């Protein structure tokens, strides 16, 4: 798998660390407990297109939002996390 880092170009999977599902949004600090449990523990876990965070640990160290297919591993693009895809 090759991930297109916006800073470093197309780089090998081995340079990256998986952070996890990028579709979950951290609730505000005093949100109800249920919102926190939901954020921490519940995942859509799609079979197909997924948005996820990867850190380019052996490169620029940026955290990226990568859009990837969980069956074919095809990658549809990567942007800096926190910016719109």
């Amino acid at each position: 798998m090759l991930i297109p880092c916006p800073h470093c170009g197309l780089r090998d999977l081995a340079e990256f660390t998986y952070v996890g599902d990028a579709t979950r949004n951290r609730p505000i600090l005093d949100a109800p407990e249920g919102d926190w449990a939901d954020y921490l523990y519940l995942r859509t876990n799609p079979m197909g297109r997924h948005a996820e965070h990867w850190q380019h640990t052996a490169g620029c160290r940026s955290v990226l939002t990568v859009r990837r297919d969980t069956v074919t591993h095809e990658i549809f693009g990567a942007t800096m996390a926190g910016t719109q895809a």
Partner: protein
Amino acid sequence: MRHSVFSLVANALTGNARWPRQWRAATPKPAYDAIVVGGGGHGLTTAYYLAKEHGLTNIAVVEKGWIGGGNVGRNTTIIRSNYMLPENSRFYELGMKLWEEMSQELNYNVMFSQRGVINLAHTSAQMDAFARRGNAMRLEGIDAELMTREEVAARLPGLDVSDRARFPIVGGMIQPRAGTARHDAVAWGYARAADKLGVDILENCGVTGFIRDGDRIVGVETTRGAIRAPKVGVAVAGHTSELMRLAGLDRLPIESHVLQAFVSEPLKPLIDTVVTFGAGHLYISQSDKGGLVFGGDIDGYNSYAQRGNMPVIRHVAAEAVSMFPNLARLRLLRHWGGVMDMSMDGSPIIDVGPVPGLYLNAGWCYGGFKATPASGFCFAHTIARDEPHALNAAFRLDRFAAGRTLDEKGIGPSPQLH
């Protein structure tokens, strides 16, 4: 037909050409008293115990592919009960006791081999952690022994126990009753035994939707037609999220990840136990055919592909050679992957609900093979009685929201790390 030494001899003399089918090729009925979705180890044991312990014999196992094609036939067959949390210890120790009786109970040789599982320690801190875990096990009546470096060396002649090793070994812990089994035989043995009790095993029968009556689930739509039942148990391992989505649950505390397994070319007897590396993640044993069977970590990112990546293969090979330098020129014969249901705390879910009429069995991570008999025993109880058995009372789905997670290693909600 009962298997015995006479049936073995008779079949050997006729060229093994006359063995009958081990279970019927059943045709789906329009309705049953209960349906179990997923014909892996857990689905089959569930059906077996529903029939045997709870008298529910008008039931079906609905399997998308063939019996033995899922993780039950893809794992590295390690069976152990060396956990630290009492809820896990008790559950997996029930499993261990059921393994000890399984071949007799099923009249089917599952080749359960209590060859011991040795966990290696490379630091004194690790030895302390093993002492703590071993004591926790012994308090639950489970066998555990610490080993010195000399004892480890005597048990594993090929192992590099020298000070030159990349991660020198200082000792280990063994669970002597732990071991391995023939995984396919487990699937076939339970399919045959459930079939004998009247259970319909429906292969090539994928569930494509659920039938509802109000908010209740009252059956399933399948590739072989609609099948109704007042109780539907789901035990589909890596495909839990996709199936539960069809029941209206969009999110669960589960992610699907791929784990690879490896088999080498056959060798003369080298390893007569199961041994795990302590400075990384590698477990290795030797099959009766001589091949080394080994595996390591999951690939580490959500995956529904039943195939793995290269970095893990390289990593696992490097670990194996750092433990057993004499394997450096060994060739790999086969390797494959399986899709697993990694839960958010590394422990399983066996529960009633979350939709009326539905029952859930999931979250087995990569330790679900050893759980096969205990999981079916507890899930059958949960389905038949509409409440968990004492041994799965801690495995409920609401434990996440309630803050009662069962996290053996204290890792937190990162399924790729469990």
